[in-house]
């Protein structure tokens, strides 16, 4: 699960940063990747779309690396599986 999420996160990030996916280490921090606050807002938007989740502002502020992003997504996906949105099958 974690590996698959990590792959998808790195793919989204690589596309956003316009670099090969190999350049996004699975333990990279946003600082390593020279991601500023505006990049980060854009990236979170693309991640929310990719995983169909909603990341609140506090969670967003705490995410500053690829592993933190992956852990945050896992948590949100687990919460979503437990409490599926109304109307979801």
């Amino acid at each position: 699960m974690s590996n698959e999420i990590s792959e998808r996160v790195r793919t989204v990030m690589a596309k956003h940063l316009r670099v090969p996916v190999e350049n996004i280490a699975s333990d990279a921090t946003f600082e390593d990747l020279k991601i500023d606050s505006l990049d980060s807002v854009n990236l979170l938007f693309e991640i929310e779309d990719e995983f169909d989740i909603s990341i609140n502002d506090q969670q967003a502020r705490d995410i500053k690396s690829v592993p933190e992003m992956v852990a945050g997504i896992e948590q949100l996906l687990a919460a979503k599986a437990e409490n599926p949105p109304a109307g979801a099958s």
Partner: protein
Amino acid sequence: MPRVAITGVGVISALGNTAAEFWDSLQQGRSGIRPIETPGCTALRFRNGAEVDAYDSLQHFDEKQVPFLDRFAQFAVIAAREAVRDAAVNLTPDLQASGAVITGSCVGGQNTSDEGFVSLYREGRPRVNPMTIPRTMANAGASHISMELGLTGPGFNLSTACASAAHAIGLAYWLVRSGGAPIAVTGGCEAPFSLGFLKAWEAMRVVSPTTCRPFCRDRNGMILGEGAAMMVLEPLEAAQSRDAKIYAELCGFGMSSDASHITHPSTEGPALAMQRALTDAGIEPKHVDYINAHGTGTEVNDPTEAAAIRHVFGQHADRIAVSSTKSMHGHALGAAAAMEAVATALALHHQLLPPTANFTERDPAIDLDVIANQARAAEVEYAVSNSFAFGGLNAALVLRRAESQ
């Protein structure tokens, strides 16, 4: 060079429909931040805003006028009427001929745009309201003020995001000072509460889920506001010769561009705007006693602004009282600087400095004397009002206490 007086003020905001109500809340440190009531503005990560309470167009406009006026332009006209009435100036044909109207509005008729888009994209209608263009244009406030008051001099609107009204007031000041207009009605107007626009702010991740706490350790974002604030500017000599009430003098204006990042502010740009405003006023940093800060309450703005203030004022910054009234009237974008300039003029007039409301705990990274929660009586000769826009376009105004009359 001729001096310029502020002789009339008008405000409609979350703090009430008049400048008197505005000042009453400011001096009591009472915030107008409440749950958002505009219909349809739910499903957002934030719930609070600073809206004009229980607004009814028909209390201010004829039924026939309303279809031509978006909410933001209505606010503009209401504040301008009050400012001119307050100035008690007789708009003679000569004054009307060259009188200027210079406004700031960042986003124009958002409500009208949103209604048009809902009609097209959601309801599948083939056409939108034919007044969509004249209601939406950001200069509509300036246009309606000029029509209402019969002012046929220079008229325009400036759109520089959160600094719009500071640029507008600054240019109106220069125009009156240079003799280009014998009177100016100037300020800002904004009505940003529509779902489409609030969603855009949500996506920026800078709006607080709770409230606006500028300069506090636990601040977590800005709170959007709406309304308008307008002031009447006249040459000091003209104001004195008609025995006008003078709230304060406008005596300096400075502008700068960060030229660095589209959203992240720099220290240098704001510092340069303040320095230029002081130079324009012909004063030194040590003369300033109060700063009405841009103070949005975001993680990045507040320490950056504090560093810029420290850079300009050095050691003297310890002796400057600072507050952000956005904690009470919210961040009304293109109208924000006008509300703050009026707040600063009223602070000089009353020699009472409005506080930063909702203040909890000092942020150790912010090395300023922030007035917390309670207004402070003080002897203030010069005050600065700061406004820094997304996109790095900065403006600072210097105001001076009126000579005793």
